[in-house]
């Protein structure tokens, strides 16, 4: 057997095809991306184990991820927060984990996106299952998984084809195959969903510039939000009583050990905001939450500087606006003495 020749042929062709594959996706405008997966989240969650009362944690859904920029927050307060917010998620499972499984007694900023915060406590439902999966992964991760993550980072940072995006922007073999559609035996009503954020190692997330500059791109994302809002109309109603009770119980435990909680309602605009106003009116949900929680709370509608912020895809701020929002929000909170500026103290 001339296996040496076989090996040489295999190596040469593999190198050539891989270079071609990488170049092709670069030529199509794709760039290197980090995967916002359980492993990346767990690295931040790990930091909570050694966090002091000076530290700050961010929780909530994608709005906290997009709208709170870590650099600006650090500039204003002297503290770089630990970003634990996750997309499409209720903050309750992660808040519950921090309250019950750590000794952390610093400040937690909880983002309350009404449709997610008040959605459910059903462990099978997506707003609960997604963040809970991250919590479970953190507690059960093996050393091998931690090493895999460590080794994958340089590859993710260097190679475009390592991108773990799903849907229309997915370029892994499975995603490419899933894009093929034949006939209409089963209809998939979900509009194509573009990735519109870029995450960094400490999970600081920035909106992609194309979301701001390309209206069609932004509109494709808006269609997805509208699809979800339509789906919510036919789904179970918000479970305000159960979610509030669950949150308040943990909140009281956290406050009792000296922890500080801030509630935040991030901006939304257009049809998304209209849908939220109709489905989850402020007075019935947010105001009641604030009243019962008895913690400092910040609703974007209450501040002149935030009232006119427009979200390019109606639910999240552009990077530029997110920087402004973060800076101003931190100033307001410092002025209110809800947080302290560690730089000056």
């Amino acid at each position, binding site marked *: *057997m*001339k*296996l*040496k*020749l*076989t*090996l*040489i*042929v*295999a*190596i*040469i*062709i*593999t190198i050539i*095809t*891989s270079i071609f*594959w990488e170049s092709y996706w670069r030529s199509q405008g794709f760039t290197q991306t980090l995967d916002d997966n359980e492993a990346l989240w767990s690295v931040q969650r790990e930091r909570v184990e050694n966090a002091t009362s000076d530290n700050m944690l961010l929780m909530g859904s994608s709005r906290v991820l997009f709208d709170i920029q870590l650099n600006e927050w650090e500039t204003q307060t002297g503290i770089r927060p630990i970003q634990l917010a996750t997309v499409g998620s209720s903050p309750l499972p992660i808040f519950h984990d921090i309250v019950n499984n750590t000794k952390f007694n610093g400040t937690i900023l909880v983002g309350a996106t009404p449709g997610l915060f008040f959605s459910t406590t059903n462990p099978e439902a997506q707003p609960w299952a997604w963040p809970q999966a991250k919590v479970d992964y953190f507690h059960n991760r*093996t*050393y*091998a*998984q931690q*090493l*895999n993550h460590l*080794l*994958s980072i340089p*590859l993710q940072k260097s190679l475009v*084809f*390592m991108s*773990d995006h799903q849907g229309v922007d997915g370029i*892994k*073999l*499975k995603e490419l*195959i899933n894009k*093929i*559609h*034949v*006939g*209409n*035996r*089963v209809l*998939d009503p979900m509009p194509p969903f573009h990735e519109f954020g870029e995450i960094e190692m400490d999970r600081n997330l920035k909106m992609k510039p194309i979301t701001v500059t390309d209206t069609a791109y932004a509109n494709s994302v808006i269609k997805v939000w509208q699809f979800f809002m339509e789906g919510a109309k036919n789904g179970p109603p918000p479970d305000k009583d159960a979610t509030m009770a669950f949150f308040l119980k943990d909140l009281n435990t956290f406050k009792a050990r000296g922890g500080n909680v801030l509630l935040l309602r991030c901006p939304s605009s257009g049809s998304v905001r209209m849908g939220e106003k109709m489905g989850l009116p402020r007075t019935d949900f947010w105001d009641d939450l604030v009243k019962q929680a008895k913690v400092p709370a910040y609703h974007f509608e209450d501040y002149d500087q935030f009232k006119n912020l427009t979200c390019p895809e109606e639910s999240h701020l552009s990077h530029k606006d997110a920087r402004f929002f973060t800076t101003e929000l931190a100033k307001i909170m410092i002025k209110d003495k809800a947080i302290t500026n560690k730089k000056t103290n």
Partner: protein
Amino acid sequence: MLFNSLSFVLFLIIVLALYYSKLFNWTNKKRMLLLSSYVFYGMWNPPLVILLWISTVVDWTAGKRLAVEENQKKRKIWLLLSMLVNLGFLAFFKYGDFLLENFVTIMNSIGIDFQAQPMDIILPMGISFYTFQTMSYTIDMYKRKIKPARTFLDFALYVTFFPQLVAGPIVRAKDLITQFYEEKKATTNQFIWGLFLLTIGLFQKVVMADTLLADTSDAVFGSDKLLHGIDAWIGTIAFSGQIFFDFAGYSTCAIGIALMLGIILPDNFRYPYASLGFSDLWKRWHISLSSWLKDYLYIPLGGNRHGITRMYAALMLTMLLGGLWHGAAWTFLVWGGLHGTYLILERLQKRYLPFKITKWNGIFLAFITFSCVNITWVFFRARTFDTAWNMIKSMFYMQIEGEKILDTFTIIKVSVVIAMLFLCHWIMRNTSMKEVSLRTSPIVLGVVWAIMTFLIIIAQGSGEQFIYFQF
């Protein structure tokens, strides 16, 4: 540690570098392999390495005593001690919750109100594999079929050898321990062929099982709806392909990695989906387990030495326990029972309705066997009897209003993959990859290798665990 992970790539490179460096003599190389094997296992859950150590020490001691002990009673005690420890581990870690759950059901059914909290015991990865492997050593020692391992190091490495530690092949002592006595070094051809097998194994796992089939079988078996017949069949054959590619992929990786170290492991699969009947199937599917069950269960139960009725009973019991070996659930027992029934029916057919297998009826017979095997997979994959029964009803159109959940392309994709799998097994059933590669031009083989590697690179996968790790 998973073969389809970056940490394993790093691990293997370090092990190979140390193995082929001139730093160590053979004994130290074996020590390095043993330590690496513990690291390989401990990267998943370090404390559970202790179970490996206990199994190793107990069976080494039992084996040593069995080698010198002449008193039959004492020999039996040593054998029982080994079996007690190994089967005790299995009973506690694998069947603890299952036994408790059934005990509670029995108590309640006879009117005793008894409730128990599930113990939520963590299942040590690969426990069914290494306990069976190490038990075979003491049983063979008891039967005086083999000589004791020369050193503790050789024995410990036999129990723990990382390529086959967590999902087999389950290797007999006479086939593996003796290979550790003399220094082993792969020839260049062996090393490259091992690397080729590793690539094929990863291709089967990452591309075929995880990328092309897993989602379909997960969607179908995860559905709580009554499905359309086509969806139920496609989900079932998708799982059929997934479990083959997943498990055969692992075995191929294991054989390849061992070969890169100059160690030869036996085949675990020989194109099973082209089996002509069920006794043929069990000579081709998970060969190391089926031969273990035959040698250590079926034959001691009497085999075919005590008449037909006893043979059928032994056959059924072996298959039922074989089913239970895969998991602590009644569905696995049904899976084993179905295979037992198939084997009995086949023997009855051979006795009362014999016919000659020709090249014309062969593929038809293989297809019938494959279809029957698919029905058993429903019980293997379904988590509950309700799901399994719904699937069977859908597959045989006992209900007609089933829901369609698979799109047309998925149906085409799975059908093509499984048809190709079946035909490939049929074409290859009387040959081997090695023989085919000898007839193939090195350049063509290199191109095939490159295509597989490229597809692994672009598929990447998300480090899905191998299905058989849970058994």
